[in-house]
């Protein structure tokens, strides 16, 4: 028995009321409601999206777990299922979509690509995992993950939600949550948080090149 459940015991419910009244904690009922109506964002990136659609379809049917309403707009979504390869051209949009989702928001990285780059990791326009830019709650492995494992991932997310508490949740804290800076497409993808490093390394590269050039000239 958990700490919370033990605390409800002192409340004696009269016998005749037992079928009508239940005593629980605020956290519990809040999380129960939330975790059984997780609306995913309708947002497919690559091959994994097809398995995500299959999970939504009749055989696997994730509406059994309260996820039937797929929303194309980030404003109405609770969870973003990053289903596929994240490319450098797409990541600014993904970050923007994430910033537009209202709290509480969650991210599931579905498939090898979203988790860490996947089979195309070595490619020149592939981001090595969506977690380089946005925080991920649940990782699902596979290429593509079967519908069963996507369901497992969604249930894991529900379990995670059930652990949360209103008192400590970041979306009820006083300070507004900070948006994630949108990456910029230059000669390569640039994370605004890393401008200093980029400048440093490029200067070092230039210094190395001029040094090389001088050696050759001699």
């Amino acid at each position, binding site marked *: 028995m958990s700490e919370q459940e033990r605390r409800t015991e002192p409340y004696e419910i009269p016998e005749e009321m037992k079928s009508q009244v239940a005593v629980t904690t605020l956290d519990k009922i809040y999380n129960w409601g939330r975790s059984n109506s997780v609306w995913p964002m*309708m*947002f*497919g*990136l*690559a*091959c994994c*999206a*097809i*398995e995500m*659609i*299959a999970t939504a*379809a*009749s*055989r696997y049917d994730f509406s059994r777990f309260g996820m039937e309403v797929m929303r*194309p707009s980030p404003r109405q979504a609770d969870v973003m299922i990053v289903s*596929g*390869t994240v*490319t450098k*051209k*797409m990541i600014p*949009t993904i970050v923007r*979509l994430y910033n537009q989702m209202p709290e509480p928001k969650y991210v599931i990285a579905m498939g090898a690509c979203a988790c860490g*780059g996947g*089979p*195309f*990791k*070595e*490619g*020149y*326009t*592939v*981001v*090595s995992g969506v977690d*380089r830019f946005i925080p991920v709650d649940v990782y699902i492995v596979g*290429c*593509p993950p*079967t519908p069963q494992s996507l369901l497992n991932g969604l249930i894991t997310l529900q379990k995670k939600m059930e652990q949360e508490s209103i008192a400590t949740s970041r979306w009820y804290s006083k300070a507004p949550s900070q948006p994630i800076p949108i990456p*910029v*497409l*230059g*000669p*390569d*993808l*640039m994370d605004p948080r*890393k*401008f200093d*490093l*980029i*400048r440093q*390394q*490029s*200067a*070092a*590269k*230039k210094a*190395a*090149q001029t040094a090389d050039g001088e050696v050759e000239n001699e």
Partner: protein
Amino acid sequence: MSDLQTQTLVPQLDTIFPDWVRPDDRAGYQGYIVETEHLLAVAKALRDTYGYDLLSSVTGVDYLPEGKLEVVYHVFRTTGGPIFVYKVQVPRDNPVVPSLVPLYPGAELQEREAYDLLGIRFEGHPDLRRILTWEGFAGHPLRKDWHEPYFEEEAKPYKSRWPEGQVRRAEDLNPFADNVDYPAGFDPESLVPDADDTLYKTLFRVQQAQHPEIKTDAIVVNLGPQHPSTHGVFRMVALLEGEKILDLKPVMGYLHRNHEKIAERNTFLQNMPFTDRLDYIASMSNNFAYALAVEKLMGVQPPERAEYIRVIMAELTRIVSHFIAVGFLLNDLGAFFTPSLYGIKERELIVDIFEMVSGSRMMCNYFRFGGLARDMSPEAVQKTKELVNDRLPRKIDEFDRYLTENEIVRQRCEGVGVLTPEDAIALSATGPVLRASGVPYDVRRAEPYSIYDRFEFDVAYGLHGDIYDRYLVRMEEMRQSVRILKQALRDLPEGPIMTGKPAYQVRVPAGESYGRVEGPKGELGFYLVSNGKPNPWRYHVRAPTFINLTSLAPMSRGGKVADVVAILGSIDIVLGEVDR
């Protein structure tokens, strides 16, 4: 020569144009090499006199050791027959080639791709911009001396992966510990990102050129890359006047996963699973085309049983793909998800068969050079027979009953997005898009590969070239696929499924080859150049939906915004293949 002969025999270009053309006599190569200055004249003669009316593929090859870039053109006749190849060669440091867009508008996107990835400049191209990468990207990635940030070695298998028995991640070798690299002395703060300015400018330029006198308030509307109608991460930028589309630019590359660069580092067999991820709804037919291309180079022939199983898998794939295409077209018309649920239900059953034979639902990786990875078990055959003989025909009829005469479907689809046969050919459309316009061209008939010459089937085609006909062609093709499946399952022989021993490393002689199949979405081709090493020197995918997208703008101009969504749905794109 009589007209009929010029239109049907393969022309000897080197005797017709002795000063401009010479045969490509490198060992293992076919076709002709044309002088760059005379390319347009030769191409025009081939099109107008010799009947090569459809430009199938344009791509470039970087021959670094010889200091040359080569542009390879594949053309064919829509009346049937084999493909014809010609090339031009230009120096690497100044690669300028006349654009073929004035002759074949279908070259537009392909030439942009060759410019983007190889840096070949096409003179006379109306809109030569980057296409798969973005404006401002540093370098041309498919050049052999261009290295990606995670570069380790020129070719796999890499030795660097296991130094002293330890795994080393690619990140550990990069100064940013990430998949990025910048030019020397680059300062991020001084950069002004392009932010689509070039794109919008081109749109307005077109507008200004067409109607210089009118000063209307045309507005630009973006659909995508995150939009429920775009079937993935595709983007359309439309120039609108009220609700009317003045012009439209497809924007792609949001799923550019560098398939070709990775494939040129991989060994031949390592590429097989990557082909699955091109058109991920129809992985088996991608396997098929790639296997054909490599087998052509190797000169092996799969055994009978393998041929039959290949055809069975390819046709099942076609059914899956068309079910999904039709279902999602209805999604775009507003029948939110119900029809696609019917389609996905049948897909599940077919995918079960794929899982039984290959071990995976989607990414089958099932074909091998000279055969198949595994045999098809008797249970799998039994299950396929039940499905094909009983359930699928019923379900296709059910679809037909629900949709074909539906008032809304007819109103939204009939006469919308019309593509005339002349335009369809000029724009290099293939597959259902071409056939719906009244050109009954099907590679299975025009140049039968594998054992397709043994089966009885009809080529489905339409007459109006509108969305409705594209829908009807897909429905009819499903029926024909069932017909082929019935024959193949009836005749399926016993025997081995592999010629020779299965091997991880195959010996591929030097040369070039082009393997093509009639994929569910159009002609899927693989252009390979081998130099005798374990890795392909050039690996190019002629992706049908990418090239079919060239016709999106001409079909949409003058229509309404809402129709664009349906037109896109009727082309049936898959982004894995469009962007590669």
